[in-house]
């Protein structure tokens, strides 16, 4: 259950090197950039983000034009061996191609346009092809105005109303709710006629000069001219294809590199800049740290600094799961549910094991399991489907359990099932087939469920203790109290029902059932008591405790300094809402603090190391901006508060103060809430356990479905039987295979994950270029 260990790294250097650094970072594929790091640490007033014009954009445009002209498809490839990086180098390469084929590409463009125009004319003329007079003759009429076009069919019916008007409309075709045709009107009534047709939504079509002859002839002419143009286009393409063939591989690589540089250039807006130097920080898997540093060492004047571990508590490290080849594909399910926090536990191995186990039990068939596995292999090999590796694994699990059940494509006579071997045969009442052992199967399913639930409870207790969540660990439904209750009830019920031992004695009930229930009922006040005694530090008095701790642990304060500081702190504390910031600053800078005596703050130096003073400054939140500005000017670098300061034990005064601050909750509320929660908890124990009955149910359903297939196929060997067997098995594999997969996933997410898993992690997303 591993989460990849991370290191926080800062990279800085002269601004002119920023592109190279970004490119290197992308190439390493292991750098998770934290764009807000510097503005969070030093304030947005000091740092600006880099926003400037993209220098590669026009080169990309040229590359696309050339690719379109040469007919090179839109594809991104690996650009190994392409050394060009500056825009001049790209410019020179594209210019050489343009010089050679620029004219041809332009001519091809001209031909494409012409073909489009002719085709459009052809589409129009197709609707006017019933015209039996020469277009040219009609258009050249001197005293009659002619308009070709179309109008909605609704409008055409209205023409009847204008029968007394001086125009003639000749319909030539009707389709898609429009009537195509031509109208003629004497020049003297041209305007009136145009108005009428406008009102009838007549859409005029201009007939190009090159359209001559009657409808049929014009169509034939246009088709012929299009064919001629296409022939010329073919000739041009032939000439271009020689260049394409020669340049194809190299051009693809150059364009891919250019796209990569263009995209990496866009990342500049995530970089912080101050005084003509760029700064960026991010997380790297610790095992890749040296390789990363080595990769960046080729860029001159760039500094890579390995920051102290988790220097800033506001910087949440990303989570990258790390599992072996067997479990890795199941990370998909964990990501689907939500990643664990960086310091959390990776549940992937648990998911992998339980998923394979449950799937195998529910869908056990040697033949079908191997088919699923093979299908997974094929999908993984050729289609890279994410689910495919999981299919390979669960297929094998299914095959293994199929072997135990003695089921090969539903045939239960080829292999002896485990329940026909001793001692199972006798113990299970000599079952002939799986249906006769159904009671045992369902009980076994429940036992599996109980074991898995108990494992989840143990995991929850472990994780909660690690997170100092004592309420959940000790008193929660999935904590120690809950586990004692659950196990006690189950054990007692099992022993009483199976062996007839009377377990529910008053003592048993009081100590192992009622007491845990009572603890769960009063978990809130109990947790509060435990939390207070264990943690020793609570939020409300944290700042005061930190100050006291800082003064006590300081090796740089004499008695006078300490007294002065306490006075300052008392003053600040009385203002409430105090902010404590831990960090470091150069020794010289600390001396300059004397210039800012009027500001409301107190700085407690804790220790000194390598010319740097480590300490905490306290300031009322109302004065935060001003004091932060002062410390920023003195190059104060914010860091995570060390644990020796935060875990300082509270004073009695602090405890008293805390008591007054604590939220008051009425007893009535607590009882009502507790009662409802108790009811829900007890019900969920029962339902969650019963939910595992489906594990046994699916074994029976699989056997039932295969029985149907076998009955349909019959016993007589024939082509029909083979066909029915193949189709039946395919149907069962597809339908039941998916249903079981979904059911197992449901059990994982709902019955198991909900008991222990907290998904509050952030995904590790290395800087990379999307091309």
């Amino acid at each position, binding site marked *: 259950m591993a989460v990849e260990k991370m290191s926080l790294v800062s990279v800085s250097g002269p601004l002119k090197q920023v592109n190279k650094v970004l490119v290197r970072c992308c190439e390493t594929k292991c750098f998770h950039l934290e764009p807000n790091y510097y503005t969070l640490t030093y304030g947005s007033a000091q740092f600006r983000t880099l926003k400037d014009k993209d220098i590669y954009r026009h080169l990309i445009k040229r590359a696309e034009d050339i690719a379109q002209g040469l007919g090179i498809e839109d594809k991104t490839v690996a650009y190994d061996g392409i050394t060009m990086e500056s825009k001049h180098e790209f410019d020179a390469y594209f210019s050489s191609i343009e010089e050679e084929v620029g004219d041809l590409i332009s001519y091809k463009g001209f031909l494409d346009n012409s073909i489009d125009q002719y085709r459009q004319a052809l589409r129009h003329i197709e609707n006017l092809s019933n015209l039996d007079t020469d277009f040219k003759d009609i258009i050249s009429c001197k005293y009659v105005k002619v308009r070709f076009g179309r109008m909605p069919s*609704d*409008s055409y*019916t*209205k023409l009847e*109303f204008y029968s007394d008007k001086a125009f003639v409309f000749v319909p030539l075709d009707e389709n898609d709710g429009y009537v195509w045709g031509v109208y003629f009107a004497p020049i003297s009534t041209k305007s009136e006629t145009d108005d009428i047709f406008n009102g009838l939504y007549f*859409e005029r079509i201009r007939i190009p000069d090159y359209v001559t002859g009657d409808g049929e002839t014009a169509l034939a002419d246009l088709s012929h001219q299009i064919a001629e143009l296409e022939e010329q286009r073919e000739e041009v393409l032939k000439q271009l294809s020689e260049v394409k063939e020669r340049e194809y591989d190299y051009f693809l690589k150059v364009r891919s590199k250019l796209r990569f540089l263009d995209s990496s250039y866009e990342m500049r807006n995530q970089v912080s800049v101050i005084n003509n130097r760029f700064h960026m920080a991010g997380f790297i898997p610790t095992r890749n740290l040296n390789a990363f540093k080595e990769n960046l060492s080729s860029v001159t004047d760039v500094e890579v600094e390995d920051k102290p571990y988790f220097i800033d508590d506001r910087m949440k490290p990303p989570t990258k799961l790390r599992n072996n080849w067997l479990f890795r594909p199941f990370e998909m399910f964990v990501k689907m549910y939500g990643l664990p926090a960086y310091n959390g536990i990776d549940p992937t191995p648990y998911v992998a094991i339980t998923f394979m186990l449950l799937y195998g039990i529910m869908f056990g068939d040697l033949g079908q399991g191997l088919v699923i596995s093979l299908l997974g292999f094929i999908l993984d090999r050729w289609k890279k489907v994410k689910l495919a590796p999981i299919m390979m694994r669960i297929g094998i699990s299914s095959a293994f359990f199929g072997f135990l059940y003695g089921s090969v494509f539903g045939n239960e006579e080829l292999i002896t099932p485990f329940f026909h071997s001793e001692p199972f045969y006798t113990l299970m009442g000599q079952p002939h087939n799986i249906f006769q052992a159904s009671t045992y199967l369902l009980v076994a399913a429940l036992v599996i469920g109980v074991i898995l639930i108990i494992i989840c409870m143990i995991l929850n207790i472990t994780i909660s203790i690690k997170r100092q969540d004592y309420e959940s660990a000790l008193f929660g439904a999935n904590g120690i109290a809950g586990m004692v209750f659950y196990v006690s009830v189950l054990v007692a019920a099992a022993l009483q029902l199976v062996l007839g031992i009377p377990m529910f004695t008053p003592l048993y009930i009081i100590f192992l059932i009622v007491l845990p229930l009572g603890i769960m009922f009063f978990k809130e006040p109990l947790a509060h008591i435990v939390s207070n005694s264990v943690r020793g530090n609570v939020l409300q008095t944290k700042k005061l405790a930190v100050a006291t701790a800082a003064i006590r642990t300081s090796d740089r304060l004499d008695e006078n300094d300490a007294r002065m500081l306490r006075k300052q702190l008392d003053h600040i504390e009385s203002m409430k809402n105090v902010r404590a910031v831990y960090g470091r600053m150069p020794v010289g800078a600390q001396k300059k603090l004397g210039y800012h005596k009027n500001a409301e703050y107190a700085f407690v130096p804790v220790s000194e190391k390598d010319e740097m003073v480590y300490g905490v400054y306290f300031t009322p939140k109302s004065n935060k901006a001003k004091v932060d500005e002062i410390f920023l000017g003195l190059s104060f670098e914010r860091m995570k508060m060390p644990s020796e300061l935060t875990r300082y034990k509270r004073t009695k005064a602090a405890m008293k103060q805390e008591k007054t601050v604590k939220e008051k909750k009425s007893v009535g509320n607590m009882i009502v809430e507790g009662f409802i929660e108790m009811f829900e908890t007890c019900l969920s124990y029962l339902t969650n356990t019963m939910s595992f009955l489906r594990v046994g149910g699916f074994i029976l359903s699989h056997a039932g479905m295969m029985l149907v297939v076998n009955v349909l196929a019959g016993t007589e060997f024939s082509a029909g039987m083979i066909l029915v067997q193949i189709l039946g098995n395919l149907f069962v594999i597809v339908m039941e295979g998916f249903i079981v997969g979904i059911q197992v996933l449901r059990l994982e997410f709902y019955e198991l994950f909900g008991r222990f898993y907290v998904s509050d992690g952030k995904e590790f997303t290395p800087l990379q270029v999307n091309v």
Partner: protein
Amino acid sequence: MSAGSSAVVAKARCKYGKMLTLSDYRQLAGKSDVSYVVAALKLLPGYKKYFSEVTESSVRRNLAEQLLYKWMIGNYTELCHFKFQQKNGFFRYLLKREEIAQIIKAIMYISAGEHENFILYFPMFLQKYSEVNFMELVKARTFKEVVTFMEGTPYHKVLKPLIPEGALFPEIRMVETVMGHHFHDWLTTIIKKEFHGKEREEIEKCVLHSADIYNMKLCYRLKGIYKMPNEQVMDNHLPYHYRFSERDMKTMLEKSDSEPIEALIRKHPYFRHSKDIENADFETVVAYSNLHFFKDRLMLSQYDSVVLFSLVELMTIELSNLTTIIEGIRYSIPSAEIEKMLII
């Protein structure tokens, strides 16, 4: 409920699901030209069918509006396809309503000597559902000719008493009133004939709600805008009431002699939602009230008649919203202002 009725309910709700959302309206209102609105409508699932063949670059506002109208009637006829077997049944109510609207419009255009314009704007696809031949109707030049032309239709009897003495046409308001009465009489009779029990109760509520709204609008227009005497307003009102009774109406008209009538109407429980749009005009407030009333009916009712009636009302609101957008864009109104005018 029969399987056919369940299918109509499901389909109607499905059509409602395809209706425009706030983000769709925002997107459309943000367009700079009607052609872009049409191009956007072509991509929307509910409108694709009606706009796919239109050339957006040359489309005009009138055509766009006609297509939207076709969308509404088309959706309705699709849903009622199997219900049309019964001639003059309830499920033809929208076609009847639109037929009446076109007759009133035709009389209006003829009386103004603009019969050609009526033909230009007449939605020709309605002709196949109508027993009145509108192409022939507009050839009439006097009201008497119109009435004569209507012989053999139910409208002859309705319009005949209006033939004026000494004038070519009666007041158009009077035509509207008698036709409105005729439509509601027909609708209520047909509901009583075709529906029973809970379904009749629900559909009657919908129709009476519409009658209430009609009467309120009447009060607002005739009394508020045209300053007509109370008796004349009462003469024109629809004698169907749900939560706005005849007595309420009389009291309100009396009160309105000393107070603005719009404020009085707005106090009615129908407009409780209008608090959110206090500055909106009266027509908007009415549409807003309809939106709430019929949205609830569409979602909650089990009866196809009620669901269909509600869908028509909601489609009418959507149609009006789209017309607002198109008009707004045409007059270069900022999108934020257009948005304020929409009934959402």
